């Protein structure tokens, strides 16, 4: 799953676009979604971001649909609470025998939240599927994020892939030896997996330290960056798109600053 997402980020059709521009579009759309008072603007963002991912970046539609299903469970649970807790306006539905009712106010808020979450998720996937992590680090460096933070993130990122592979191998061999047959066994096996993983991780960290020392590591990682200029046309199109969304957000519910 992780590798697949990153593979698409490396190979999609928007790969050569400036990472700064892609991040700017993604983050601004998220902010527009969160601050929009009505559900229309977030839904518009969701539709356009999905269109960009599918048509411009050429991500397979089936894969994208599967990704969108991932966060559904949290959304359903939290929105159910909001639906029942918020009570104002006409009562639409009452649960017999329980002091629970869905009101018009609650339903509107739930719909707005659903739209915002959906718009936000699509914008996040737009960033995740079009921009490789290494380019995000590069952009962060240009934004003057502390170097020690970026170095730590890059090393962490590198190790995530190594560890996932090891965890997967250990898990498979445990399953083959019936390690997850009963509940007691599965807790024991899982503890063993996590413990072995931690120790192996630590050892590979020490190995990395040696390798870096041998290459004159002095506490800083120097990595050259390549810069791709933002074309004026792309920037103008992005600004036009964002102001269109902002206009829709204003016209469908007025301006809400706080």
């Amino acid at each position, binding site marked *: 799953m992780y590798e697949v997402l990153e593979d698409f980020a490396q190979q999609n059709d928007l790969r050569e676009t400036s990472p700064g521009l892609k991040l700017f579009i993604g983050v601004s759309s998220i902010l527009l979604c969160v601050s929009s008072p009505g559900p229309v603007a977030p839904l518009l963002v969701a539709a356009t971001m999905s269109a960009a991912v599918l048509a411009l970046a050429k991500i397979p539609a089936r894969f994208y649909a599967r990704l969108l299903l991932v966060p559904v469970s949290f959304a359903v649970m939290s929105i159910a609470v909001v639906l029942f807790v918020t*009570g104002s306006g006409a009562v639409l539905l009452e649960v017999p025998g329980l002091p629970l009712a869905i009101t018009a106010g609650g339903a509107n808020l739930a719909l707005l939240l659903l739209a915002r979450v959906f718009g*936000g*998720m699509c914008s996040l996937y737009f960033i995740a599927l079009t921009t490789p992590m290494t380019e995000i680090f590069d952009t962060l460096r240009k934004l003057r994020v502390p170097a020690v933070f970026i170095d730590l993130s890059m090393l962490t990122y590198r*190790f995530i892939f190594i560890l996932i592979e090891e965890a997967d191998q250990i898990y498979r061999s445990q399953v083959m030896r019936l390690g997850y047959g009963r509940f007691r066994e599965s807790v024991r096996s899982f503890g063993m997996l*996590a413990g072995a993983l*931690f*120790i192996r991780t630590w050892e590979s960290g020490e190995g990395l330290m040696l390798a870096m020392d041998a290459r004159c590591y002095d*506490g800083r990682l120097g990595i050259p960056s390549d810069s791709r200029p933002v074309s004026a046309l792309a920037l103008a199109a992005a600004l036009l798109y964002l102001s269109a969304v902002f206009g829709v957000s204003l016209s469908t519910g007025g301006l809400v600053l706080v």
Partner: protein
Amino acid sequence: MHIMEGFLPSPWWEIWFLVSLPFIVIGLYQLNKLVQEKREALPLLAVAGAFVFVLSSLKLPSFNGSCSHPTGTGLGGVLFGPCIAAVLGLIVLIFQAVFLAHGGLTTLGANVFSMGIAGPAVAYLIYKAGTRAGANTYATVFVAAALADLFTYVVTSVQLALAFPGTAGFLGAFSAFAAIFAVTQVPLAIVEGAVIMLVFKYIVQLKPEILTRLDLLSESTVQKLREAAA
């Protein structure tokens, strides 16, 4: 528990960023000092961050067949203290948001506070108090990890209830969110406590120098624990 992108409305996501900021700044300051003093700290912290990421993306065995994920926050808190754990938590959450769309960028502040600060702080305090009181090390780790996991969910419920008090008021909304998130989490918190305890046991048996180097256990305690196991 990750709050999703777009879920927290406007004043709240900014507020949680502001609340988390001081911890991150202190954590970065400590980190900078640590890296200058001990150059080997950076790679070791990096693997610890990756470990937390991988651990929190693995499925935890659970009673009812539904899957849940360990938070891993307890271990980070016990090993590195709450401020550095907050920086590691921030990195892990950014990765989860940007390449899994798990959590989000505007809700990052709130998620860092619940998973990167509140959970590890609880684990750290319980661990310190337990070792000072001379309690059994494994029991202390179990309680620290289980309560850190549970507390993370309680904080998430508080965050959601503050943002959506509805007509029931803060307390009413809190009990509703807590009933859904925190109460269902109790058995999972116990499993996570047991798992982290086992991790700790394996480290003591196979590579105790990690723990002595981080000043978590003295040589004599390690010796005692290994003799007890043998």
